[in-house]
């Protein structure tokens, strides 16, 4: 997936949107799908019985953009992600995927939408009865892809999450972090254009967590993937919002810090509080905020 990066970093790390060259704008018109957001929430409400979980949520995730969703535990982050996949239906409001209103879609209609979305579940959600190989291969097996092709793809994905040795193991034999990484490999098979990460780094050691963030950055900057990254960890936020991936002259992927010249515009933070969005914006704005709730969330006290 990352062997032949097609887009250069300039595409994703422009100074500001307004400074797009006129030719770029024409390109945008030529490719209407670039201006249509990958994910859009319009005033979404959802309650479980008397419990109001989402109370008028609106946001968009553009193509090639990453939205980092922050919020306290039980704040409705996983619920938001489940809505995108149509695993739950909102009480009111609309959800659009690539401009398609999926709110009223039936389970069967949802299947075509889900085909372009990869989801990393908070608890891994691996199939217990299938080996690691079959878990990762699941989507390809369902599509009836030839076994030789499946095997190459599965090995490549497992190498990517550094779990080649575990290929024949059953999920019960894996540690929590390994399960999570298998879940990531499973979600990324088939190169989905939208990837949803639900706390992918929770409970992992810092280097592994860093690897997962790098992975998300590579998807964003080199593969033009739109993603949602739910997390509690400020370290992840820092990686995602201040580094970008590019390919150096040797063809190696390198990570560079945003600086004076380049400011990352493809990562935004969304902060949830009591079912409402209380902040959307870049990390610089987030750091500069004086909202006491956000300050407490960042510092922990």
């Amino acid at each position, binding site marked *: 997936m990352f062997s032949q990066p097609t887009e250069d970093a300039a595409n994703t790390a422009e100074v500001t949107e307004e400074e797009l060259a006129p030719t770029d704008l024409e390109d945008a018109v030529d490719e209407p799908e670039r201006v249509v957001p990958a994910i859009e929430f319009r005033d979404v409400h959802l309650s479980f019985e008397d419990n109001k979980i989402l109370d008028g949520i609106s946001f968009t995730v553009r193509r090639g953009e990453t939205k980092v969703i922050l919020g306290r535990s039980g704040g409705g982050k996983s619920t938001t992600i489940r809505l995108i996949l149509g*695993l739950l239906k909102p009480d009111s409001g609309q959800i659009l995927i690539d401009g398609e209103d999926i709110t009223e879609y039936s389970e069967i209609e949802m*299947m075509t939408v889900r085909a372009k979305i990869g*989801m990393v579940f908070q608890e891994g959600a691996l*199939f*217990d009865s299938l080996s690691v190989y079959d878990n990762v291969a699941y989507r390809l097996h369902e599509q009836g892809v030839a076994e030789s092709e499946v095997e190459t793809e599965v090995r490549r994905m497992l190498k990517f999450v550094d779990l080649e040795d575990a290929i024949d193991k059953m999920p019960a034999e894996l540690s929590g972090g390994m399960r999570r990484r298998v879940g990531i490999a499973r979600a990324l098979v088939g190169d989905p254009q939208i990837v949803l990460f639900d706390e992918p780094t929770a409970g992992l050691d810092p280097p592994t967590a860093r690897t997962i963030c790098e992975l998300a950055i590579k998807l964003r900057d080199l593969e033009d993937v739109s993603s949602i990254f739910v997390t509690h960890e400020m370290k992840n936020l820092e990686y995602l919002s201040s580094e970008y991936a590019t390919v150096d002259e040797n063809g190696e992927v390198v990570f560079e810090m945003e600086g004076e010249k380049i400011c990352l515009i493809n990562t935004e933070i969304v902060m949830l509080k009591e079912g409402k969005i209380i902040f959307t914006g870049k990390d610089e704005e987030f750091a500069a905020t004086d909202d006491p709730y956000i300050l407490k969330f960042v510092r922990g006290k």
Partner: protein
Amino acid sequence: MNLLKKFLFELQEITNLIIFAFLGLFKSPRYLKEIIRQMDLIGVGSLPIVLLTGFFTGGVLILQTYPTLVHYGAQAEAGRAVATSLIRELGPVLSALMVSGRIGSAISAELGAMVVSQQIDAMRALGTDPNRKLVAPRIIALILMLPLLTVAADVFGLLGGGIVAKNLYGLDYNLFITSVRNGITTEDILGGIIKPLFFGLIIGSVSCYKGLSTTDGTVGVGRSTTSAVVLSSIVVIIFDFFLSRAIQSIFDIKPI
């Protein structure tokens, strides 16, 4: 009122489950391998308990009825007595109850555990309809295997009856077999095979529904397992009455 509402709701949900599962059969991918795996698990796996049940039921039928038959001087009809009750009633119903205990609980526990560990969600997220991948193969395997299991139970029941009659009461095997053959009709055998088809459908759909509608974590899995077995057993027994009546009138069976 609330109970009635709940009942109607569950009935509707189970009907939907069956409809979706069967509609899915006509679309690819077809989960043929999964059906065969379930047939092996359900059919071959349940064979020992069903055979044992059949054997001892046949045995006990002779044990209890033979003295009465002697009283009326009708000991030659012993085979007929076992055969009719076994093939018409006890074979189908007891096999269904054993299978609902063994397979119904397994199905709802497995699906329930998949619900609480979000595997069902993951499956849907990966573009697979659980009705087609999980529910349909199980229901079909049950519908196909339960009649076979029932026939096996019937055969072993007759065997058990014959052995008890010979060894405890000294009835000749030939006499027993002749009376069995005189006693049962084609209608009995057909009826005894039609019933388990429906019982398989009941056990499969009730257990899958209970499993998939699990809530409240692992505690919920236990609860849905219990209610899957209880509900499917009760529905089997109630349905058996109406099915027997229907079969009687369809085949025009008159009291002898």
